[in-house]
C-alpha cells in the first residue's frame, strides 16, 4: 500500500518536473541559427589552430582549461577508487579460467584494440574522437585481458609512472606556451613555430592538438586500466 503511494507520488512529481522543463525548452527555437560564438569558431578554426575537426580545436585549444579539468577529474576518480579500495593484501580471486575460445580470442584481439585506440587519439584533429575515446578503447583491451585470464595483472609500477608522466607532460606543454606566448596552454607549435601550416588536413598538422591528445590518450588508457584493476581485486585473508 505504502509502496503504491510512494510510486504514484514519484511518478506525479517526475511528470511535473518534465512538464516544467518542456515549457522552458518550448521557447528555444529548434533548427534555427542561434550560434553567436559558434560562427567565430567555424570561420577561424583552420587558420588559428590548424585542426580540421572543430570540436577538438575547441576542446583542446580554445577551451583547453576545461580539458585539463576533465583530466584532473579522471585522475581524482582513479585515486579515489584506489584510496577507497585500499587493502594491504589484495589479489585476483577469480577461479574459472575462460575457455580456449575466449582466451585465444582475447590474445588475438588485444594488439588490434590497442592499435585502434592509438589510431583514434592520434587522428583527433582530423576525425571524430580524440584522447578520451582512444584512451577508453585502450583500457578496454586491458579489461578483456582481465576478464579472460584469472591471473593477469597490469604492470602497476610502469602504468602509474606513465600516468603521472603523461599528466605532467600536459601541464608542461601548457607551461611552455606560457613561456613563449604569454598565456597558459598557448599553442606554440602552431602559432610560434608555424609547424605544419602548409599541410592542413594531413597527419602532421593541427598544432599541439595531436601532442596533447596523445598525452591524454595514454593517461586515460592507463588510468581506466588502473580503476579496473582496483575494482577486480579482492581482499585476501591469511
Amino acid at each position, binding site marked *: 500500500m505504502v509502496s503504491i503511494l510512494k510510486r504514484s507520488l514519484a511518478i506525479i512529481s517526475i511528470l511535473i518536473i518534465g512538464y516544467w522543463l518542456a515549457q522552458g525548452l518550448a521557447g528555444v527555437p529548434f533548427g534555427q541559427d542561434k550560434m553567436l560564438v559558434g560562427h567565430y569558431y567555424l570561420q577561424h578554426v583552420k587558420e588559428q589552430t590548424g585542426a580540421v575537426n572543430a570540436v577538438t580545436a575547441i576542446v583542446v585549444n580554445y577551451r583547453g582549461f576545461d580539458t585539463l579539468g576533465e583530466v584532473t577529474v579522471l585522475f581524482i576518480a582513479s585515486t579515489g577508487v584506489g584510496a577507497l579500495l585500499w587493502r594491504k593484501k589484495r589479489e585476483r580471486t577469480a577461479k574459472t579460467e575462460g575457455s*580456449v575460445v575466449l582466451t585465444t580470442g582475447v590474445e588475438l584481439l*588485444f*594488439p588490434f584494440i590497442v*592499435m585502434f585506440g592509438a*589510431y583514434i587519439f592520434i587522428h583527433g584533429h582530423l576525425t571524430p574522437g580524440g584522447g578520451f575515446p582512444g584512451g577508453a578503447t585502450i583500457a578496454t583491451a586491458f579489461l578483456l585481458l582481465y576478464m579472460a585470464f584469472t591471473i593477469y595483472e597490469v604492470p602497476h609500477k610502469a602504468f602509474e609512472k606513465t600516468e603521472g608522466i603523461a599528466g605532467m607532460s600536459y601541464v608542461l606543454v601548457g607551461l611552455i606556451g606560457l613561456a613563449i606566448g604569454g598565456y597558459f596552454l598557448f599553442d606554440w607549435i602552431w602559432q610560434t613555430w608555424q609547424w605544419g601550416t602548409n599541410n592542413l588536413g594531413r597527419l602532421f598538422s593541427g598544432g599541439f592538438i595531436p601532442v596533447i591528445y596523445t598525452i591524454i590518450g595514454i593517461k586515460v588508457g592507463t588510468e581506466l586500466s588502473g580503476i579496473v584493476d582496483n575494482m577486480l581485486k579482492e581482499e585476501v585473508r591469511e
Partner: protein
Amino acid sequence: MEEASKVSRYLYTLIILFLIWLALTASLDEQELIFGFVLSAIVAAITYPIFTTRGLANLHPKRVAYAIAYAPYFLWAMIMANLDVAYRVLHPKRPIRPGIVHCKTILKTNPGKLSLANSITLTPGTITLDVDGDNYFIHWIWVPDEVLHAETEEEHVEKASENITRPFEKFLKVIFG
C-alpha cells in the same frame, strides 16, 4: 608447440599491425606511413608476447594461400547455413531435431581451435558450446540419423566429426597446424 624466437614474434606482430594501420587509414600519405610504422613498432613492443607464439612462421606462403582460399569457402558455407536455417524457420512443420553432440578435432594450436569453433558457430545450424582440449561440444539444430542412432561413443564422435569439423579442418590444419 614450441615458441618462435622473440625477434620473429615481434616482427610478425609489427607486420600485422602495420597492415591494420594501412587498412584503417586507407591512405598512402607518407606522413601516415611514417607515423603508422612508428606506432606499430611501439604497440608491437607492448603486445607481441600476448599476440603470437609462432611469429613469422605464420606468414609461410602456403599458409597465406590457404587462408585466402578459406575465405570464399567459408563465406559460401555461411550463406548456405543461413538459407538452411531460414528454411527451417519458415517451414510450416518446423523441422528441427536439436541435440548436443561430441566431436574431436585434429587441430593442435589455440588459434586453430578458436577459428574452428567460430567457423562451426557461423555455419549450418551448429553452435559451439564448449571446447575442452580436443573435444568440441556442439549444439546441432538437426541431428542426423547416423549420429542419433550411433551404437558406441566412438562411432558417435566419428560420425559427428565427419559432418561438422572435417570440412573446415582440411583448411585450418594447414593454416594453423
